[in-house]
């Protein structure tokens, strides 16, 4: 099975560090790469695509160096974040043009491009010039171009950008199917919800450094020492203050806040695992009944906020 391996990769652009000492392995399935602007996501993708060469370390894609092995590119599909179009071409001309770079003859390329664009709902507009396309249509054209030669590896930089809900749903379905087919898919998106819907495998990156990688729940566990907020909603309103007061007696509770309007106590802990073990015991002892224990902190957004200190999402 093919793998993508980055080993101690550092990439410098003059004095600017693109990524620093990144080590990761990507296998089949979808992996989300998350980080704010300038975090190093695009640099990581460029290294995998062979558009950049590491200053230190090495990149191995299916056992080959992507920077020098042009044949490897038969197996890699890339959806760039920015528009990279020949605006004077129609959608079908553009998609078939790039398919012909794979040494496909004209008729075959035309047919396959037509099929791919039709599948993505562009049958009415594929003969129009790209310069007249909306953002969503452009996005679909990019995806069609990157995927119609059935690559093993897909690198998708913001593939949902500008896509309407229908397109988004369609693309997600396709990505799930491709992942089920055993393709390696690396996807970056600023819409965290999209990534959460698609995969649990994530890479968090900031300032060129990899903060964490793996299953997002696992990552959360590893970061147990990072404070997280847990909302506990007692059935009786009278128990709100009692619960808050009682929880503050525990050394692993850093703060407690009563929110009467939503009938909940917001507890902040840096020992989440202990919290979940101890809380039922305390509730039983104090005879407090609760109807909901909720932690938004398991979402990628809060996870990321914890890691990068609320830096702006890309």
């Amino acid at each position, binding site marked *: 099975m093919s793998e993508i391996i980055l080993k101690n990769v550092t990439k410098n652009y003059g004095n600017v560090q693109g990524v620093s000492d990144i080590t990761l392995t990507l296998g089949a399935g979808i992996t989300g790469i998350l980080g704010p602007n300038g975090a190093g996501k695009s640099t990581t993708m*460029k290294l995998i*695509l*062979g*558009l*950049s*060469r590491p200053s230190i370390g090495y990149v191995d894609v299916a056992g080959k160096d992507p920077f*020098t092995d*042009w*044949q*490897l*590119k*038969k197996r*890699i599909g*890339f959806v*760039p974040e*920015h*528009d*990279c*179009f*020949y605006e*004077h*071409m129609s959608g079908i001309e553009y998609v*078939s*043009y*790039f398919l*012909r*770079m*794979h*040494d*496909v*003859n*004209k008729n075959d390329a035309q047919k396959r491009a037509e099929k791919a664009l039709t599948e993505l709902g562009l049958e009415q507009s594929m003969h129009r010039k790209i310069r007249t396309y909306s953002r969503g249509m452009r996005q679909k054209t990019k995806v069609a171009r990157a995927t119609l030669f059935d690559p093993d590896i897909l690198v998708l930089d913001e593939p949902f950008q500008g896509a309407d809900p229908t397109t988004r749903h369609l693309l997600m379905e396709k990505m799930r199917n491709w992942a089920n087919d055993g393709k390696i898919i690396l996807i970056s998106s600023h819409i965290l919800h999209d990534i959460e819907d698609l995969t649990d495998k994530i890479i968090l990156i900031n300032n060129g450094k990899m903060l964490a990688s793996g299953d997002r729940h696992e990552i959360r566990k590893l970061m147990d020492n990072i404070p997280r907020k847990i909302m506990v909603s007692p059935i009786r309103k009278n128990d709100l203050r009692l619960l808050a007061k009682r929880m503050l007696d525990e050394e692993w509770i850093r703060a407690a806040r009563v929110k009467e309007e939503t009938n909940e106590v917001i507890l902040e802990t840096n020992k989440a695992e202990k919290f979940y073990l101890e809380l039922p015991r305390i509730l039983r002892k104090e005879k407090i009944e609760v109807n909901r224990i909720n932690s938004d902190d398991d979402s990628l957004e809060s996870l990321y906020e914890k890691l990068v200190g609320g830096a702006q999402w890309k």
Partner: protein
Amino acid sequence: MEMKNIIVEVTKIGKRSKNLAPPIIKDCNYRLFMNKLTWILIFILLLPCLLGLWFYYDMSDQRQVQEINGEKIYYDVEGEPLHEEGRIAFLELSQLFSIGFVGIVVAIMFSSELINEEYNQKTMNLLRTTPIRPVEILLYRYLSGVFCMFTILSFASILFYIILMMTAGIHGIIEEIDVLWLIIKIIMFESIAYIGIFCLITIYFERPFLLGILYWIVWESLVSSQNYQKITVTHYLDSILFDGIKKMGWNTNGYLTYEKDLASDYGLMNSKDEIIASEPMIAIFALCFIATITILLGARGIAARQF
């Protein structure tokens, strides 16, 4: 790389060319011909045609005609054949426009559109993620550039020649056709060499227009008149021109002359007053060699470029 490997690679490129070359060349030709700047340059190239028209109307009242074997031969008031005056004007203006400044600007502009625009539009990034060799990326763009430059300059030259020679009638047009072929030959080799050089500059440097003009002024204009001129494209183009005119038996002043005078007209003399013109076959070989080297170095540049 071993010779055997090179042959294998070239064969593979040849086999793939039937799928790769047509879409790339078609797209590049479209971009070059549809570019507004191309049409401005075509307009500038056609300006001498206005001069040709003026020459025609100015001379039409004064010219004298003599009919020999049913052919009308036109002369000016001093009795000089008009086609001889026309060919000199054609040669000098062609050197100034098609071969000279405008030709160079066309080559710089085309190279920039073919390479630099692709970097600006980021389509080069995408091409680099497809299984196409860097040499293929450059080669088909180069061929398109040569084709377009040759077509436009040749078309302008043919049109200019016909308009300018109208004064000398059909006889004049046919009589001096060799000078038109000579100019077209020069345009072909000029396109082959300059598109390669400017593509190379465009690949390695970020300001191709400025550097291209600097190259032309410093290298092709200053160095080409010195003893070391054999390292310039101008020397080889002038050598072909010199040989062609020599064979026709006239120089730019319209008189039969000694070889040295003619060589001097084209700056093909060294400081020891020796003719240093290259043999035409050597000149052609040198220009093709320059083109090949620029494509290979350019391909290396594309391969090494990081995004």
